[in-house]
């Protein structure tokens, strides 16, 4: 986390240098600092996952919002149209995420994306019960979630050797 | 002109939020299951946060956003408590009397 602290420090310094804390100064300072630190990484002699993780976090954020948008439209359509196109089902998805934070993120993000809703995690943390609105093909829904959302979360938060 | 537009939008926003509240209220009154009512209340809580945002825009005073902030953090506590009640009640009903909880 020391890289993160250093990055924040650089962003703050940058912002002060440019005359105060505004969105532009802080964000650009963070970006510049990130670049500088990445460049300087070999000099410090400390290998860190920090740079990758920032990237994964960004990816998670972006992909999540994209998913959110797409599935929202789908759900909205079902609400406004008089017939229910939905074919809901409760799915059981095996969980690879192990940490509490990971589980929280996965379930929350699944819930936030329209069409799927995390209902419960089994006590052994191995399976997640999901209510899916459009489960014409349950297997497909599960696979999409595992390779998408869960993957991104694991990348972002879970330390891997 | 744009100020006017924002005013119109805000007022429309109020109408829509009230509509939402009214719809949630209907669900709350009708039920039928306990989780249905909880969902409705939860929905209303979230709607109030929107209401606060609108109030802030309308009055130009950001103080109302503080209300939304608190609501966003704390509002779901009621949902959690009620949901837990709904769940435990079932467990108790299984264990104890028929008409319990």
């Amino acid at each position, binding site marked *: 986390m020391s890289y993160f602290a250093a990055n924040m420090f650089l962003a703050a310094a940058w912002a002060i240098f440019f005359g105060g804390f505004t969105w532009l100064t802080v964000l650009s300072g963070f970006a510049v600092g990130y670049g500088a630190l990445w460049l300087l990484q070999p000099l410090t002699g400390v290998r860190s996952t920090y740079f990758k993780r920032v990237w994964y976090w960004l990816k998670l954020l972006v992909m999540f919002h994209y998913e959110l948008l797409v599935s929202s439209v789908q759900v909205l359509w079902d609400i406004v149209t008089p017939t229910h196109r939905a074919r809901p089902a409760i799915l059981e998805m095996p969980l690879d995420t192990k940490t509490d934070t990971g589980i929280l993120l996965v379930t929350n993000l699944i819930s936030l994306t329209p069409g799927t809703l995390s209902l419960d995690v089994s006590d052994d943390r191995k399976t997640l019960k999901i209510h899916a609105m459009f489960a014409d093909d349950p297997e497909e829904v599960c696979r999409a979630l595992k390779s998408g959302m869960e993957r991104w979360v694991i990348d972002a938060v879970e330390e891997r050797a | 002109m744009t100020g006017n537009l924002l005013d119109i939008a805000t007022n429309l926003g*109020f109408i829509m939020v009230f509509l939402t509240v009214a719809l949630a209220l209907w669900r709350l009154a009708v039920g039928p299951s306990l989780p249905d009512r909880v969902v409705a209340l939860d929905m209303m809580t979230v709607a109030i946060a929107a209401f606060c945002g609108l109030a802030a825009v309308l009055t130009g005073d950001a103080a109302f956003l503080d209300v939304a902030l608190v609501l966003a953090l704390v509002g779901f506590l*009621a949902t959690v408590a009620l949901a837990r*009640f709904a769940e435990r*009640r079932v467990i108790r009903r299984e264990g104890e009397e028929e008409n*319990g*909880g």
Partner: protein
Amino acid sequence: MTDARGNGPVGLVPVAIAAALFLWFLSMIPAIAEGSTLRVAWDWVPSLGIALSFLVDGLSLTFALLISGIGALVLLYSNTYLAGHPQFARFALFLTSFMLAMLGLVLADNLIALFVFWELTTITSYLLIGFGHETEKGRRSALQALFVTGAGALALLAGFILLGFTAGSFELSVILAEGDTLKAHALYLPILILVLAGTFTKSAQFPFHFWLPNAMAAPTPVSAFLHSATMVKAGVYLMARLHPAMAGTDAWFWSLTIAGAFTALFASVLALRQPDLKQALAYTTLMALGTLTLFLGQESGYAITAFATFLVVHSLYKAALFLVVGCIDYSSGTREADILGGLARAMPVTALAAGLAALSMAGFPPFLGFIGKELKYAGALAIGSEPLLVAAALVAANALMLAVAGVVAFRPFWRPARGMLPRTPKEAPWPMLAGPVILAALGALFGLQPDILQIALIDPTVAALLGSTEDAKELKLWAGVNLPLILSVMTVALGLALYVFHRGLRAALARADAAAPNFDRGWDRFLGGLKGFAAWQTRTIQTGVLRRYIFLTFATVLLAIGGTMVLRMPFPAMPDLSDVSWKNVALMLVTIAGAVLTAVTRSRIGAMAALGVVGIGVAMIFIVFGAPDVAITQLLVETLVVVLVAVALLRLPTLDPAGTRQKRRIGDAIMAGLVGLVVTLTLLAVIDTPFDRRLTDYFEVTSWPEAFGRNIVNVILVDFRALDTFGEIAVVVIAALSAYALLRTTTKAKP
């Protein structure tokens, strides 16, 4: 009654006190006999015009001498009578206190001080009558005496207060001088009624007489003291005391004459009916009190002289006889007239004392009783209207008295016993004999030398009542053959006849009495009725049903506020709704919908959630009207309410458990609607008044410059009105502690 060991010095201290007081009062006789009065006064409650003032004149001195003298003898007597009794100390304390209170009563010059002593005699006599408190009967008698005399005392208090207001002072010496204004005053009659209610109850005049015979449950010395010489005469004393100020009106005359005459006759008849010696004496006391009352109704010199004389006569012989009965009881173990007999041999001294006292009571010459009786007749004949009727009543009463004297003091000693006595009788110890002997002897002495009494006590007493000694009639054994003497002879003849046939008469009387209204049983009915009424009232009001309580409380709210509204308030102007926006209407509708939903739903969680809606609606109102702090607090509190209820509901049953269908509560709904309406109307009226914003204006301009805060609400909370906030957090802490304690405290198993 235990052994005769006495109670040592502890028992003698009260005797010494009483004796010393007696001597002290004796020493005052010369001064008083010369016509002067003594007055001492201390401030007590000057703000209320109440002083501890005392006045010694003929009347009060006579009473004081009787009280302290008989008191000393009775205390001496009881020292032996109750020797070794575990509660003797308190008995002596009560009796001495009673004596002192009685002295205070007769000496007080301030009406309120007099009342204080009056009530002190009530309390001490209550404790004395209840000396036999372990029996139901003892307790009942004590309560009865207390209640009846207490009731009278309250009337008396009201009378005294009015008397004081009317006369402008509570000092008797002032009031007595105001007699004419008083009698002319509009309040005279109420005052008279109230005062007589006090005196008639205390002196057991018909129809308040019934407590006195029951009070004989007290130990005999108590009866001798309280119910012959002192307490019961307090009423008589008060009538005599107020005689100069209040007598002379028709109301006074008729009420005293009728009550006195009736009581005298009625009591003497009943006296004969009693098998118990003490009871018989008790009724003769009633007769005496009636007679005294009767005389106080008049203003003639004869009547007042008769009053003064008979007062002393009666005190002497009655105390003596009571003590004699105590001696009989003490030595033989019974007081039953039907069993007792032949005691003269075993108890010669007692027999002598009894004989002397009885002869005085029966009115034989040369005893003081005879003089008293002659004066009585003379007094009766001097009465302005219906003298013969009164005289006839007195003759009858005196004849009965003679018969009773025979029953009490002759039969047990001189006639053979008719049954086995519980104990072998023997003479009582000397401390017990001293009293009866001395008192009886005094009756004889004064009969032979009436001048002593006349000069020392009778004349000054008459003077106290009538203003001068001129009207005092002479006390003499032989006044020539006159109408009173003839009446006396008739009395003796009639009395002897009654004595001879008294057993038959008693049986007949018992039958008649059983048919007549019984005041004693009436007392029980009264108490029962009181209890019943109290229970009914309490059942009706204090139902134990919470809903009723709440309903009545809201009904009161409605009546108080709505009623005042109707009486006092113009109907509120049509509210100004021009500034109402649809948004506000929507807010209102949300809130109302939530409230109505809460009221009608049968689902607990439905109600909970609906409450949440109300909370949200109210919070939105706070937001719209510029109160973010309040809105935040409201939402947080609302959330916590939901959390707490959700937790509690986990263990609570449904709102309408199986089988209890919620009834439609139309009455409740109407009540609720009306309360709501009243609230709305009041609020509408309030907002229709101009508003004064000066407090807020002050807060707005001082908040930042002087209290260094920009959030005015917070500055009010923590600075301008920090004390409120402090109290409020105390409420929060204590609410938490209380709830915590309530949850953790253990339930005690109940029997």
